[in-house]
């Protein structure tokens, strides 16, 4: 079988970015393989390591520098790579249609896509790709097992998780918790040099959606200082985390 794993390069969350004239200045930012996509590469490798005879093809899209992300996937263990190269920004639906052509051409059975793209924070690419292919789609996936052409997956829903069963082909979008991606080891980095990277100009046609303008939002941190002794300050902190930030819940509530 053939597994495709879709990759995007995004600014490293730890790199320094400046806001200039209301827009982001990314010069000097370092780029990395999107963490959500990394879960997808790892998931594909684990499917193969579970004993499935599979070829894994990493498919990147974006500017030429995306070859870094693609090479990371090759060094992690993907067999070969395709890079749809283009500098322009395209909306997720447009990208999905271009990727669907690659999926059909490769006759893939299983596609992993990052649950979200860290730069635009869009979660649309995976669903749009499944829609374009007419395939089933599992979103926010935290567990995935394959047995023949039957899969079982666990994914997050608002109030917990669901376990799903289905048959290939399927598009699976990833979520934190799916796995712990491996480091590309030094031997695999060296081996990846000899793997094929097929770069082609992204032929996306007309954009389905165009960004016509954007405005930044700046928000000051609240910088709340809690006074008093440790006990009362801790009590107040718990109260605020529970009642205001709503990140804590009392038992039974």
């Amino acid at each position, binding site marked *: 079988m053939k597994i495709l794993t879709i990759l995007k390069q995004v600014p490293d969350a730890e790199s320094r970015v400046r806001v200039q004239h209301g827009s982001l200045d990314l010069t000097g930012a370092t780029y990395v393989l999107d963490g959500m996509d990394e879960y997808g590469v790892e998931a594909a490798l684990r499917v193969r390591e579970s004993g499935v005879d599979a070829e894994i093809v990493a498919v990147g899209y974006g500017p030429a520098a995306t*070859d*870094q992300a693609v*090479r*990371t996937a090759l*060094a992690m263990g993907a067999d070969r790579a395709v890079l749809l190269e283009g500098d322009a920004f395209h909306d997720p639906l447009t990208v999905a249609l271009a990727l669907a052509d690659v999926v059909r051409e490769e006759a893939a059975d299983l596609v992993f896509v990052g649950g979200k793209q860290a730069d635009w924070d869009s979660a649309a690419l995976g669903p749009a790709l499944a829609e374009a292919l007419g395939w089933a789609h599992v979103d926010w996936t935290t567990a995935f097992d394959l047995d023949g052409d039957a899969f079982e997956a666990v994914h997050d829903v608002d109030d917990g998780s669901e376990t799903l069963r289905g048959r290939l082909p399927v598009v699976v979008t990833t979520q934190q918790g799916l796995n712990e991606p491996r*480091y*590309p*080891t*030094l*031997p*695999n*980095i*060296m081996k*990846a*040099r000899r793997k094929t990277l097929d770069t082609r100009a992204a032929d996306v046609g007309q954009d389905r959606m165009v960004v016509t303008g954007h405005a930044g939002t700046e928000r000051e941190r609240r910088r709340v200082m809690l006074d008093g002794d440790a006990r009362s300050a801790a009590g107040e902190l718990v109260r605020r985390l529970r009642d205001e930030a709503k990140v804590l819940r009392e038992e039974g509530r």
Partner: protein
Amino acid sequence: MIDFELSPEQRQIRDLAQRFARDEVMPHAAAWDRDATYPADTVAAAADLGLLNVGVPTEHGGLGLAMLDEALVAEELAYACMGFYTILMASDLGVTPVVIKGTSEQQARFLRPLTEGPRLAAFALSEPDNGSDAAALRTRARIEGDEIVLDGSKMWISNGAEAEWVVVFATADPSAGHRGVVAVVVERGTPGLRAQPIHGKLGQRCAPTAELVLDGVRVPRANVLGEVGDGFALAMRTLDRTRIPVAAGSVGVARRALDEAARYAAERQAFGAPINRLQAIQFKLADMAINVETARLATWRAAWLVDQGRPDAAASAIAKCYASDAAFATANEALHVHGGYGYVDEYPVAKLLRDVKLNQIYEGTNEVMRLVIARSLVR
């Protein structure tokens, strides 16, 4: 003609080393230092990723990493902990003479096992009474038929007790000076070989160091690298190469010191503002940045010469001497920027200074480096 752009693979190698250093080394470095713990698990994890014994050639199961690539790894690992990097570096120091002079039979016998697990090598040149005057070594090698018998002791041997085997330099003929030196591979567990761990080090405390006592150690002649008499030149050729990772490690320490100083100077308030608003501090930071950048340039150039097949003793010595002096100065200034906090172990800068002192001493003191450099100038 001049190109400082790293290849995609080099960036990946650096990223891997950086990630490993950040996740697996940095969080533990202070504790390893405090307790002088040998971090066996982390060495094993480094081996799993291919970061150990990177100089083993591909035909013997290794990666045969280029020197510039090794320098990238060195800088990142030393950024997290110079002592940890010394464990890996000292193993490659043991590997190097076997790579340079070993027959393919010797390389297969000694190098391949190092690629199959977290296994270390070591290099034994210094003696209790003999450091910089390396040719005056006193460990004796007697040839008895098909065997070599070794007697004497070797000092300051990194990985001496942990190594699978150690390249021992000994003299077969003390009257012949450096022309009497022989290099012999001695495997761990050979009767008569004893490793006495050395305690109480100022820095690099997680890197194990031992004295090796050789008492009638018998090894087959097949373990001799090259011929009897080749040993000294082999030791020097080895060090010409391995001083580059020392230089690269020094760059890593200097970069860490700069980062720590810059961070602290942004947080620490004095006279109503962060101290990084003070020109006295800004100049210190600028000098540290000058040190980091120039030390890296000297290191990369020496590494590039090796990768071009033109290893250059003077270039390596310049890199090692300059980078370790620059790193010591940078760590010293970083400590000073921290004031009293720099003098206690709550902040990592004191460790940087203690660790990097050794870089000015091992693999040839910086005085010996200056002799090597001068030798290329004075005819």
